[in-house]
């Protein structure tokens, strides 16, 4: 598989804080990668580096280009939606479509109009008259009509109601994503994107603490429901995390032997949010 993004020793310091600390990773084509981390962990900084919006130290290669010096070419192949409501407030739907159609060589106008036809947006509507959800619909219609190889989404559904959120990811999967495209997404609403991700990256204090594909998550991590009498045995196996539910304990294990776990109780695949909470324990302490 060919790499879409390769980072080696990516480092970014703001005045006194280290936002990215010698981060290295690789993202292949045809993947949907979730970049998950607590507030201030460096997610947005990493995305900004990929998009050439910020300066950094280290090596970063996006689609064979250096985002710092070759940004203009890069942006023909890369699209991004940086949280909601960044469309200019004065623009009308018609103007936005006209503008993008004329400055973006890979924009398909008919496709965009098709997407817009499914919404309540009218050509003369201005962004300032729209609800947050409608703004995202417009932005998504514009972006999905661009035949880009990499789509970067930074908290794209922040502040949207659940109908818009579901619809957002559903359209992405149904109308946009294919094996030639790659999507990188950050969000705090982990549960909603869990089933669409192919890869998972956890970032904490500027470091990648977990970088794996979703199949491997199921093999590596396991959650066991243990009754009180076996809890001590389970604790000796050094679980990542332990929580209590209805008098039983749920333990989260990293790389433990399946057969041993199955003796103690019911084994299941942990949800990403539980895995996230366990991994990020003590972040704000």
């Amino acid at each position, binding site marked *: 598989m060919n790499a879409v993004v390769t980072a080696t020793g990516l480092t970014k310091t703001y005045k006194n804080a280290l936002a990215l600390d010698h981060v290295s990773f690789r993202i292949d084509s045809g993947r949907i990668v979730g970049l998950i981390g607590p507030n201030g962990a460096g997610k947005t900084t990493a995305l*900004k580096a990929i*998009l050439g*919006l*910020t*300066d950094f130290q280290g090596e970063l290669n996006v689609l064979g280009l250096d985002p710092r010096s070759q*940004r*203009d*070419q890069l*942006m*023909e192949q*890369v*699209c*991004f*939606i*940086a949280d909601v*409501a*960044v*469309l*200019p*407030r*004065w*623009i*009308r739907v018609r*103007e936005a479509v*006209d*503008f*993008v159609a*004329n*400055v*973006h*060589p890979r924009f398909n106008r008919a496709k965009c109009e098709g997407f817009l036809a499914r919404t309540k947006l009218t050509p003369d509507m201005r962004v300032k008259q729209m609800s947050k959800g409608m703004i995202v619909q417009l*932005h998504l219609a514009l*972006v999905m009509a661009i035949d880009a190889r990499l789509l970067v989404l930074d908290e794209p559904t922040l502040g949207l109601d659940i109908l818009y959120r579901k619809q957002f990811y559903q359209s992405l999967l149904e109308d946009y994503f294919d094996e030639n495209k790659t999507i990188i997404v950050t969000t705090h609403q982990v549960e909603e994107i869990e089933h669409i991700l192919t890869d998972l990256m956890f970032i904490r204090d500027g470091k990648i603490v977990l970088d794996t594909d979703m199949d491997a998550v199921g093999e590596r991590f396991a959650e066991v429901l243990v009754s009180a009498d076996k809890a001590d045995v389970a604790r000796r196996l050094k679980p990542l995390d332990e929580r209590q539910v209805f008098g039983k304990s749920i333990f989260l294990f990293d790389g433990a032997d399946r057969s041993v776990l199955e003796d103690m109780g019911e084994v299941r695949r942990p949800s990403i949010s539980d895995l996230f909470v366990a991994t990020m324990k003590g972040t704000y302490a």
Partner: protein
Amino acid sequence: MKTFYWLLKREFWEHRGGFLWAPVITGVVFLVLNVMAVIAAEVLGARHGFHVGGDNLQMMIARADAGDIRQIGAGLDIAMLSSMGVIGIVMGIVVLFYCLGALYDDRRDRSILFWKSLPISNVNTVLSKVVSAIVVAPVIAVLVSLVVGLAQLVIYALVLSLHGVNAWQLIGLAHPFRAVGTLVSSIPLYALWAVPAVGWLMFCSAWARNKPFLWAVAVPAVIGLLVSWFGIMGLFNLPTAWFWKNIVQRALLSVFPGSSLVYDDGSLTAGADFGDDGHDPLAVLSPMHTYGLLASPNLWIGVLAGVVLLAGAVWFRRMRDDS
């Protein structure tokens, strides 16, 4: 090229209010005020039996010698120019604030992230805004001025013709075509003259993290005060006023059309001419005079400084990632 055209179009969409409607509304208000003044004069005239123009005026024109005729023409020219001047001032204000917001507003509302998600270079973005400020805005203002100026001339002529004065003869005394030519030809000179101010304002707009207006005004003002205080210009054998006139004013006020007249000694002479024999207010503005500025280092050093500042603006446009 196509991209650049659409970038200009985008600026026009966003600033239609300032670029188009501000001059149009100013012009319309100006005309309405004039008409009201004329009506007031008519009413007063009728009430007090005072006679505007009429046969007397017609006779006056008929008997007037060449000098008097020129004076009537000059009066009409001034009436025409005054509306153009008001629109020019409004345009200067629009351009000043446009430049200050051009590279700042989209950072503040974060829509810069949308613009930057498109394959547009920072150089083109900044250039499209410069062209909007020094070409698009003045061209629109000039077109509106021409319509308003000529409309005013026609209104005066019509009013006088109601009093039996031959309107066409009156219009013939004014110089509408010269006024048109003068105004149109002033656009390129304005563009060059405004470059340092546009450069400085846009530099502040791209650089300031907040309150670009304050920075743009405060920096030159404070430096000017320090220069005055310590008499630094004395080191160069120049009066303190030189700094205020050539640095502070050039950085802030060159966006006002006609501001170059203050600097051009030639125009002062023209003004003096206007004083004694001058029945020709257009002379001050004529390209023959104003384009003498092309020979002045003040203009070209300003252009150079403006280009350097704009290069700085492009750099900050790329580097600032506070959104």
